[in-house]
């Protein structure tokens, strides 16, 4: 995919021209903040991450080879910064239990033995939104990022793979896991709320 930033723009950035930097920051801050919020960062941390992302991009302009869209490239830097930020508390937990629980929902013929429960409204209520937002906190950083980029930003698989540095197969697993975890969590919260 061709890049959306010209060689002239890159030169202007290298020369530190005011207008060039303002253009870069004005065009991409909103996306970087949105991705950071979706990853669960606070407003202050999201802004710091966006700032560090621009600083890292500007300090290594030569590394940007123009093979990807600048947005994809910047979100890739942001993702790595966010992973560093979370490194200490970040652990990719095993999905075995969730996967097992999901498998147990079907009988040998592949029919539901424990059918899905939980909300089925076609219009989102505030309560459901709140429950889903709470459940999203339980996703890992890579799951959250992959899911947000796909569902909200409508990024292509190729771009998301570049941003996260994963293969297409890994991306499918990330999205599968994110969806299964969110749904199972939603059902649990919904059903327990009903019986409180």
């Amino acid at each position, binding site marked *: 995919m061709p890049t959306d930033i010209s060689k002239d723009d890159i030169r202007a950035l290298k020369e530190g021209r005011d207008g060039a930097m303002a253009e870069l920051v004005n065009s991409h801050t909103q996306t970087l903040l949105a991705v950071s919020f979706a990853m669960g960062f606070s407003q202050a941390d999201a802004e710091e991450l966006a700032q560090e992302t621009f600083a890292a991009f500007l300090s290594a302009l030569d590394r940007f080879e123009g093979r990807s869209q600048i947005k994809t490239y910047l979100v890739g830097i942001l993702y790595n910064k966010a992973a560093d930020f979370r490194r200490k508390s970040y652990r990719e937990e095993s999905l075995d239990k969730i996967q097992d629980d999901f498998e147990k929902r079907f009988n040998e013929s592949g*029919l539901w033995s424990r059918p899905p429960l939980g909300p089925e409204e076609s219009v989102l209520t505030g309560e459901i939104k709140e429950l889903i937002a709470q459940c999203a906190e339980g996703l890992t950083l890579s799951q959250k990022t992959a899911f947000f980029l796909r569902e909200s930003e409508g990024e292509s698989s190729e771009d998301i793979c570049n941003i996260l540095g994963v293969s297409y197969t890994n991306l499918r697993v990330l999205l599968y896991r994110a969806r299964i975890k969110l749904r199972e969590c939603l059902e649990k919260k919904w059903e327990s709320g009903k019986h409180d």
Partner: protein
Amino acid sequence: MIKRLMPSCREVSEKVLVGELFNAPLLQRGLLRLHLMLCEHCRRFSRQLEMISKTVEEIARPQLDPRVVKAAKRRILEHLKPK
């Protein structure tokens, strides 16, 4: 014949989970739609996943107040300018 070709609930829910419910080849797509029409549980499962997708789209939006974004841009630019 249709019964033999019809995907199972497990297969339908797995297609939903990988986001490939309607990218399947024509015949399979038709059978998946038919299964969803006939199976209340799979329909609920699929609707819940749609609902989750819609919500994820909205999670970041309320925080993106234009004033917040504008102020962030100004601070970021100030920080990036060579001192």
